[in-house]
């Protein structure tokens, strides 16, 4: 069933599966995830390396490398449009104009032999649906640079002349140049220092307020989630194991053992305890995922049923949990 365009969610993902194929194995990177992101809201995708966060983002943008990977099932709607069914030409226009992405590493996301002004201009020229003249495009370049706090006269500089924090702001400027409705930020601050990180997050937040952008924030840092997100999806081995509002996820109560493990493993500046509580074991090999619950081999609360049967999702007040501890009826 397709939403009508007027009330369609910014992003609507239903039961998405993504696989990568190598010569001798199939990597199941995303295994049946569903979520909605409404206009003007921020959803955090949280998880560790290999949880499938970036793969999900690339699938949304239809940027998966098609020689080795493909969407193996499910549907993706961007503002009501079925992404998988769109012709390439339409997708090229949507990408950048409707939905755009801030990449993780500002050091490698920029072209070193092009001035930053030209790099911003490039996306404006491709997505010139407003038929801007050359002069208007130049004015827009100045405008977005000022927006991210970089003096417009620096547009003639090459990336090497900027610090890490400034490069990340340029990457943000490129993503925002065409005023997209939806922004995917893939670990936008991992490469930055804490004081610069705070500046960049404040900037993203300010722009979100100003432009009413829907934001998908991909991060492994729960501190960033609580500061920026409205809703949170905790991912493990390509599945959403827990989903809820920031209040639900960060308040005590019923939580997925993996979510609890994540909170326990973070070094806390307020705690006086010397030892940390790591999650034992390693992320499962995505070519050979365990039977039953994917987290069961590392779970301190693992039961017999967890090893054989995949848990169903239970829901209460929009708080979704995929765990046998809270199985069957709505969890109390």
């Amino acid at each position: 069933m397709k939403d009508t365009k007027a009330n369609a969610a910014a992003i609507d993902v239903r039961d998405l599966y993504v696989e990568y194929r190598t010569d001798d194995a199939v990597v199941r990177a995303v295994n049946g995830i569903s979520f909605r992101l409404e206009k003007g809201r921020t959803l955090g995708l949280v998880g560790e390396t290999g949880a499938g966060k970036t793969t999900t983002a690339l699938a949304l943008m239809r940027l998966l490398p098609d020689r080795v990977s493909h969407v193996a099932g499910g549907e993706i709607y961007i503002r009501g449009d079925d992404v998988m069914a769109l012709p390439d030409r339409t997708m090229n226009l949507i990408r950048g104009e409707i939905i755009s992405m801030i990449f993780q590493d500002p050091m490698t996301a920029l072209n070193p032999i092009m001035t930053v002004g030209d790099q911003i201009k490039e996306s404006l020229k491709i997505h010139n649906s407003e038929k801007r003249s050359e002069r208007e495009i130049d004015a827009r370049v100045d405008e977005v640079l000022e927006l991210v706090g970089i003096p417009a006269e620096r547009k003639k500089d090459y990336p090497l002349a900027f610090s890490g924090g400034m490069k990340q702001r340029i990457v943000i400027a490129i993503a925002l140049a065409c005023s997209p409705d939806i922004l995917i930020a893939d670990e936008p601050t991992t490469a930055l220092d804490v004081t610069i990180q705070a500046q960049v997050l404040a900037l993203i937040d300010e722009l979100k307020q100003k432009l009413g952008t829907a934001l998908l924030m991909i991060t492994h840092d729960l501190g960033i989630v609580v500061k920026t997100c409205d809703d949170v999806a905790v991912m493990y081995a390509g599945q959403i194991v827990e989903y809820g509002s920031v209040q639900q996820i960060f308040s005590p109560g019923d939580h997925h053992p993996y979510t609890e493990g994540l909170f326990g493993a973070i070094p806390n500046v307020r705690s006086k305890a010397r030892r940390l509580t790591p999650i034992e074991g390693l992320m499962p090999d995505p070519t050979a995922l365990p039977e039953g619950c994917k987290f069961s081999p590392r779970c301190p609360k693992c039961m017999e049923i967890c090893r054989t049967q995949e848990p169903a999702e239970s829901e209460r007040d929009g708080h979704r949990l995929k765990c046998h501890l809270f199985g069957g009826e709505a969890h109390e």
Partner: protein
Amino acid sequence: MSDRSIPLVQAEGLKKYFKRTRGMLHAVDGIDFSIMRGETLGVVGESGCGKSTLGRTVIGLHEATGGRVLFDGQDMGGLSRAERRKISTRMSMIFQDPYSSLNPRMCVADLIADPMRINHMHGDRYGRYKKVAELMETVGLAQRVAGSYPHELDGGRRQRIGVARALALDPEFIVCDEPVSALDVSIQAQILNLLMDLQDERGLTYMFITHDLSVVKHISTNIMVTYLGKCVEMGSSDQIFDDPKHPYTKALFSALPEPVLEARDKQTELLRGEVSNPVNPPSGCRFAGRCPLRTDVCTAADVPLYETEPGHMAACILCREDAG
């Protein structure tokens, strides 16, 4: 045996400059500290502030431009090549990036045996590989990965190889340069616990370099906060965390995103501007350009460290009165 009442590692006015086309890059600019045996000095600061250079200069991977390092009371600068080589087996380093610091063409056992082979320790091949097996056990690597190559292992296991290599010569002092920043949180905690256990078992002395305040809290006895090659604050872990004095340390705490709901409404005090250039830096406080409390006095002359309470020092003129 060495004297336990003197610091194991001591730096006095340590400087390391690098020559650049436009002048001298002041990576480490007059740093003093001492670390007692079995203790950990945490070094915190942003990238590019000279933390790694400091660590490398301390163990002699860089030649100091000025000042000196004393190891177990001996001036490292005045040693002959042979003496220096001997003393350098008593110290080692764990590197930041387990992806690029291991030779991709060597298997795990060879990687761990390498320091011993180079220094002709633990006898022949057989003796060395017995030691390798012990080390793998110590750092929690299964024996079956002995023949694996780094690309076959994940980041956590690779960093365990890095730890095993650092332990291979039974050193007394280890510089840990951002040993967990490339790892996932759940794995980070495993490695930090391992480092702390090793310290307890073997009485190791650490210099722990990181940009992450929350990591340093758990492991450090004392903490030094650096900014552009200078120490801006130094004190015990509790002093720094309970009562930070320098505006930069305070900004670091304010910017630290805490994973608690209360943090949602907390206003972060944002610093304005970018880190200034370490090439030919101006005189005065290096942080003045971004400091919310800057006055004219700050840029007039270099600011010394003022002792505000026993063992707690901060390089800020606002601390001058506290120091009395």
